[in-house]
């Protein structure tokens, strides 16, 4: 009568998992001026809101890690949030064999099994981290949309004033902060 042997292997893994989520969008800017002029107005507005410029891209990283990057020439907006987390994982792999001679091979297979489980667990940890980031980013989107709309409106208003100045002499500018309406009287 043969005896069954149980081979059990335990593996552990310490890893820093990383995840990122983000969105791309575009500022709706009316083509009232040349691309360069509009880019200048947008860059100036973004500077007042704490964006730092590197080449064509103005960016700002917030306290919670949300990074907003705006290409001032195209109006392309990218909002990203990345994070990392250290995880300590442990997994077991076990197999049954019928003879002692098979044990060495079984140990290797059990080790592979445990490592595969570890990789799966690392994948799950990465996905959980990504979901946390997604929820955090989602919570910020509404505010962010409001700010981006405000930037668009401000730049459009400034562009209108510049355009009006190019068309003739601006005699009167009336801005209603409550409704966002802008009235410009121009003598052509």
């Amino acid at each position: 009568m043969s005896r069954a042997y149980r081979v059990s292997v335990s593996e552990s893994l310490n890893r820093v998992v990383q995840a990122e989520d983000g969105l791309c969008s575009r500022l709706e800017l009316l083509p009232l001026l040349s691309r360069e002029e509009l880019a200048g107005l947008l860059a100036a507005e973004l500077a007042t809101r704490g964006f730092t410029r590197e080449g064509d891209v103005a960016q700002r990283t917030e306290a919670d890690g949300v990074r907003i990057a705006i290409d001032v020439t195209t109006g392309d907006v990218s909002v990203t949030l990345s994070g990392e987390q250290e995880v300590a994982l442990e997994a077991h792999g076990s197999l049954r064999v019928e003879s002692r001679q098979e044990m060495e091979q079984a140990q290797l297979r059990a080790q592979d099994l445990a490592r595969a489980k570890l990789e799966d667990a690392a994948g799950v940890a990465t996905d959980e981290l990504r979901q946390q980031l997604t929820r955090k980013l989602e919570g910020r989107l509404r505010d962010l949309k409001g700010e981006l709309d405000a930037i668009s409106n401000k730049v459009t208003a400034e562009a209108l004033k510049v355009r009006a100045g190019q068309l003739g002499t601006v005699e009167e500018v009336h801005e209603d902060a409550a409704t966002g309406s802008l009235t410009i009287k121009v003598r052509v």
Partner: protein
Amino acid sequence: MTRVAPSEFELLTLARAIAGLGQYAPVEDLLRGRHLVPPRFSPGALHVLRDTLAKGSMLALARCGGWRTQRDVRDGQARSGRLWERHPPPALHFSPLTLHVLRWLLEQPLVIHGAMPLDVEGTPTPADELFLFLCCRLVAGTPCAPALGAQPVFRRAALCWLGFPEQFGSAPPALDATAFAPLLADGAWLLEGLQLELARRWRALEESKPGLASPADSLALGTAQEAVLSTFLDAVDAAGRRDLAGFLLAAARPLLAQPASRWVEGLPASASLSSRADAARAAAAFLRALGRLARWDAEHRAVRFFDDGYESAQHLLSEWSAFGEAGFRRAEDHARALSTALTSASGAAPVPPPSTGSAP
């Protein structure tokens, strides 16, 4: 009475279900199982098959919308009546491709992965295209549909892409505007006859989107829709047959009352924002395509009574008036809301204000 062998009877039953707009359930066993088909058919069976295809396809065309009394303006001439009153009887020619497809449908179990591919050479005739379209119609939404969508003969058929873009998986169509040329020949009788059916199909496709729970599925469907509509609209525009795109407005009209967020409400909150944003943008493919019809509508308004094409422009303005500028505006609002990642991905797409003017 014509006597046929049991295997011939199965093939004829399937042909009858396809051409006669039958239901999937009665022929499900024929499609799911493996059946022996004789290499040659008896003269009696061939006669019945020819009769089934000829009468069935005409009946299908009539039921798919040919029965409606329509008015169209072609080459400056207005025609009014049902499909068979507006066009001379078309010479339907089913090539051997149709028989190959029927044989393959019976021989291969369509629900088993790795069914033998359908290897048929040759360009389908318009009658073959109609038959392939009706095959897709029979299996639409069933486990057999992916097997058809994987076959090159279906993937090459422009009409199948136009009617069933969801059946072809994630690979976009390798079609260009010339693929629609045979369908636009001879007064485009086939496309005219299928207008009602195409409208039903596209409405059903859009209505299925809230049920899509996978961003990848939504992306695949939107990509296929965008590609096929872009090609189709190029083709009808080049052929001077913008009226053939009218089914899109008929499909869109009942949908626009719902908020834009409805298109993506099935996407799970656990999916990444980036994938949801891509899926939402793709979900707006159909609505974006309406933008092109809106531009055409504006062009038609600008055609003066002494310009060429005035009759045709007036006819289309009248046909599309039920959808109207308000409908186009609303479709654009929805498309913008879905494409603006900052709102669509977070499920916070704003409900556009009710359109003014003629209600879509």
